[in-house]
C-alpha cells in the first residue's frame, strides 16, 4: 500500500525505504544492495534526498556554524571571575540614585519575570547560560547546581537593540562584573536586536559556595556597572531598563 512520507507529502511505494535507510544511504553507510539500487532508480527517493538538502540549505547555516563555533571553541579560554567587592557595590548604589532617569525613545523592552522557570514570552529579552564541565558543554537550567571551576558562557535574545551588562550577585550580596568581565567599571556593550547572540568570553566559577544570581540588564541607552547595586537580595538598575535573572547554586 502506498503511504505519504513524514514531512513533504511524497507518495511512497511499498518498496521505498524508510527515512532511517535514507539516512544511512546519505551518509554512505552500509545499506542492503536491493535498497541501494531501489534508491538509485527511484525518482521519489531521489526527490526525498533533494528535499532534505534544500530544506537544510534554506537555513542560515553560516550563523548557526558561527554560534556553534563560538560556544565550543571559546570555552577553552575562559576569563577568571573578577573581584568586584562590597565597597564598589556601595558606590554603585549611590551612583544609581543619581542616574535614575533614563529617557526612552523606543518602546521599552519587555522584562522577563518567568525566566527562572524556564519559559520565555515572545518579544521579551532572553538569557541562556551554557556550562562546560569535564569537557562537555550543556545548556544550563536555572536553579540547578554548579561546581567551582565550571565555565559559563552566555547567549541573549534582544527584541530591540540594547546596551547589555551581566552582573553576578554572590550569596553575601557582593557584586561582580560577569559581562564584560572586568574588575574595574564595566561599560554596557551595545548589541543589535536578534536572537541567539552568543557573548564573547567565558567566566570560570570560583571556590565560593552558595547561591549566586546572574542578572542580565538591558537598557536603551549606554550605562555602566556603577549604576547597578544590590539591595536586600534584589538589584537596583537604571529606570526603564529590563532584567532577566539566572540563579545558580554552587556546591562542592
Amino acid at each position, binding site marked *: 500500500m502506498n503511504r505519504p512520507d513524514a514531512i513533504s507529502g511524497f507518495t511512497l511505494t511499498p518498496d521505498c525505504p*524508510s527515512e532511517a535507510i535514507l539516512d544511512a544511504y546519505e551518509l554512505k553507510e552500509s545499506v542492503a544492495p536491493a535498497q541501494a539500487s531501489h534508491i538509485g532508480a527511484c525518482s521519489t527517493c531521489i526527490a526525498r534526498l533533494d528535499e532534505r538538502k534544500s530544506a*537544510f540549505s534554506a537555513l542560515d547555516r553560516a550563523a548557526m556554524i558561527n554560534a556553534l563555533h563560538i*560556544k565550543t571553541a571559546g570555552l577553552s579560554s575562559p576569563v577568571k571571575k573578577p573581584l568586584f567587592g562590597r565597597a564598589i557595590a556601595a558606590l554603585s548604589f549611590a551612583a544609581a540614585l543619581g542616574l535614575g532617569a533614563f529617557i526612552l525613545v523606543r518602546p521599552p523592552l519587555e522584562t522577563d519575570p518567568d525566566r527562572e522557570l524556564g519559559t520565555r514570552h515572545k518579544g521579551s529579552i532572553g538569557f541562556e547560560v551554557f556550562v562546560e564541565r569535564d569537557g562537555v558543554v550543556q545548556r544550563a537550567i536555572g536553579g540547578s547546581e554548579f561546581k567551582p571551576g565550571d565555565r559559563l558562557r552566555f547567549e541573549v535574545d534582544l527584541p530591540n537593540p540594547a546596551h547589555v551588562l551581566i552582573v553576578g550577585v554572590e550569596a553575601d550580596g557582593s557584586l561582580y562584573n560577569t559581562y564584560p568581565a572586568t574588575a574595574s567599571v564595566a561599560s554596557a556593550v551595545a548589541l543589535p536586536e536578534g536572537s541567539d547572540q552568543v557573548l564573547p568570553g567565558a567566566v570560570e566559577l570560583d571556590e565560593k559556595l552558595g547561591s549566586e544570581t546572574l542578572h542580565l540588564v538591558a537598557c536603551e541607552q549606554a550605562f555602566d556597572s556603577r549604576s547597578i547595586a544590590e539591595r536586600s537580595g534584589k538589584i537596583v538598575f537604571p529606570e526603564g531598563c529590563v532584567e532577566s535573572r539566572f540563579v545558580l547554586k554552587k556546591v562542592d
Partner: protein
Amino acid sequence: MRREEVEETFERYGPMVFRRARAILGNTEEARDVMQDVFMKILSGGLKNEGSVSGWLNRVTTNECLDRIRDKSRRTALLKKNFIPGERADTGHEDRAMVRAMLGEVDERIAGAAICVHIDGMTHDEASKHLGVSVRTVANLLTRFRERSLELLQSGAREQKETQ
C-alpha cells in the same frame, strides 16, 4: 575545535538531523533549535560510533525532540489543535499530528517505537533492528501506544464535555 571542523561536521550530518527533527516535531523553527542542541552535543562530546553514526544521531535527535514534546504547554496546544473530538481526520498527515502530540505522554521505549513506525515509516522488522528489540516487542510497544492514545482521547473528550 577549529571552525573548519565545526563546518564540516555540520554540513555532513545537518541534513539528516534537521530532517528527523522536522519529522518528529512538525515544526521547522523548533527543529532548527533541536539541531543546534544536537550539534552542541556532537561538538563537545564527539560522535559516538557504536553501531552506526546515523543510528546514534537518530537516537540523540529523537531524545532532544521528546524533551521538547514533553513540555506541557506545547503538548496541550497540540492536543487542542488535533484532538477536538469528532473532528479528527484519518489522513496520514492528521495521524502523524496525533502521533506527535502523544509522544510526550508515553515512556521513551514506546515513543521510540511509535516514531520508527508512524513517523519514519519503518516496517516492524526494520524498527526491531533499529531499536534492538524483537519484532514482537515492537508490536507490543505499538499496542501500548495506541491504548494510551485512546485513553487520552477519551479523557480529553470528557474534559471538553465538562467545560461546555
